[in-house]
């Protein structure tokens, strides 16, 4: 999609969903207004999944095709993914404090997202610490694939691990039956966050390409200086 069009679409849906979240969505019965954070929380974790999925797909494709473009796509997705994973974790904590009375609990979902967050960090650290661009792309693609494959396994292991023990806090999710208006707002915030993700992802890719051009120009000018 054209970048400007994407920017405007993101902006419009974002504003619309903000309005919907604060004005249209009904106030939740037991949790009150704080429940509205759910729309941000849920949507950013959805984007988080989308991002790790993109990392996986583009890492695999990179290993097969060895196209620099694919590496840029994978690494940009990881960076944007880390951003949304952080937003997801933070909004979760802000929501948990008033509703559950604690900032954090080792619930399977929380733990899995925390580990995913750590995997994103590892991936980005790895990229920073490898010197040659070709090697960086290759090694991080390998780690990207391993990390992405691990995510569902981590979730399963956490889930079973937790059900073996009594839970101190039971998840305060939306439970059964969502108000249809809430359903619409969720759908809208999903759309808004997805568009935002694609926009940021595209921006990050452009930045990476620009950086590469600058690097090669710098090298050229240095070379001329020597000659």
């Amino acid at each position, binding site marked *: 999609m054209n970048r400007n069009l994407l920017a405007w679409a993101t902006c419009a849906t974002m504003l619309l969903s903000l309005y919907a979240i604060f004005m249209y969505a009904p106030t939740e019965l037991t949790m009150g207004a704080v429940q509205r954070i759910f729309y941000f929380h849920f949507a950013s974790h959805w984007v988080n999944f989308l991002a790790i999925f993109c990392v996986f797909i583009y890492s695999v494709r990179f*290993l097969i095709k060895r196209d620099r473009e694919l590496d840029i796509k994978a690494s940009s997705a990881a960076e944007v993914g880390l951003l949304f994973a952080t937003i997801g974790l933070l909004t979760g904590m802000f929501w948990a404090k008033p509703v559950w009375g604690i900032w954090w609990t080792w619930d399977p979902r929380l733990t899995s997202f925390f580990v995913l967050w750590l995997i994103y960090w590892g991936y980005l650290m*790895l990229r920073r*610490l490898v010197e040659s661009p070709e090697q960086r792309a*290759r090694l991080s693609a390998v*780690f990207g*694939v*391993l990390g992405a494959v691990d995510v569902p396994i981590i979730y*399963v292991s956490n889930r079973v691990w937790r059900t073996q023990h009594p839970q101190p806090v039971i998840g305060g999710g939306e439970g059964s039956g969502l108000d249809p208006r809430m359903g619409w707002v969720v759908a809208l915030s999903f759309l808004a966050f997805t568009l935002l993700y694609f926009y940021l992802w595209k921006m990050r890719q452009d930045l990476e390409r620009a950086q590469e051009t600058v690097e090669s120009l710098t090298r050229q000018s240095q070379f001329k200086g020597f000659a």
Partner: protein
Amino acid sequence: MTFFKQAGAIFWKDVLTEFRTKDAVTSMLLFGLLVILMFHFAFEPDSMETARFGPGLLWMTFLFAGLLGMNRAFAGERENDGLQGLKLAPISSGAIYLGKMIANLCFMLLVEAVILFCFAFFFNFNLLPRLGWMCGITLLGTLGFASIGTILAAVSMNTRMSDVMLPILLLPIALPVVIGAVESTAAIFTDPPGEALGFWVKFLVAFNIIFITLPLMMFEYVLEE
């Protein structure tokens, strides 16, 4: 040479080098003993507490000792450009992976056997009735950790801070192994073995199948130049 003979050759080379220097195994072993010593002073556990914290303690020790060994696995190859030789040799990269992985596995198992013995000895813990299960679980858990650790050690070898990078990459990915191994060990540490045992053993087997196959396929990308 068939694939398994190639892997065997790599394995034997690693075992021989280790036998001559004894660097990795000695450092892992000492580290393990130190953790047991620290554990005693940090918690002064009675026999109930030993059964309660033992599984976690044992696996923490195994994993961190394993990390020490795994860091050595490729560091030696880098020092004398041995990796270049490995790459030039007419063998498949999968065989290099398998050989290295089994070598790591054996070093870890050797160290773990001693640590287990010391654990039982120092904390008066009767391991004998559970020995069969304990061996099986140790084998499965260590296999999972070594299989993913070997490929990530090869990845982190190429970074500027390889010693720090390995745990950062490996521990989040190895989390399911940690959970599986600790939970199944905890299940056999209670007197009638816990009913979760069956699930966790199957889980470890499944994890191993995935994380041996995947690195076997991807190891060539790590070695390439």
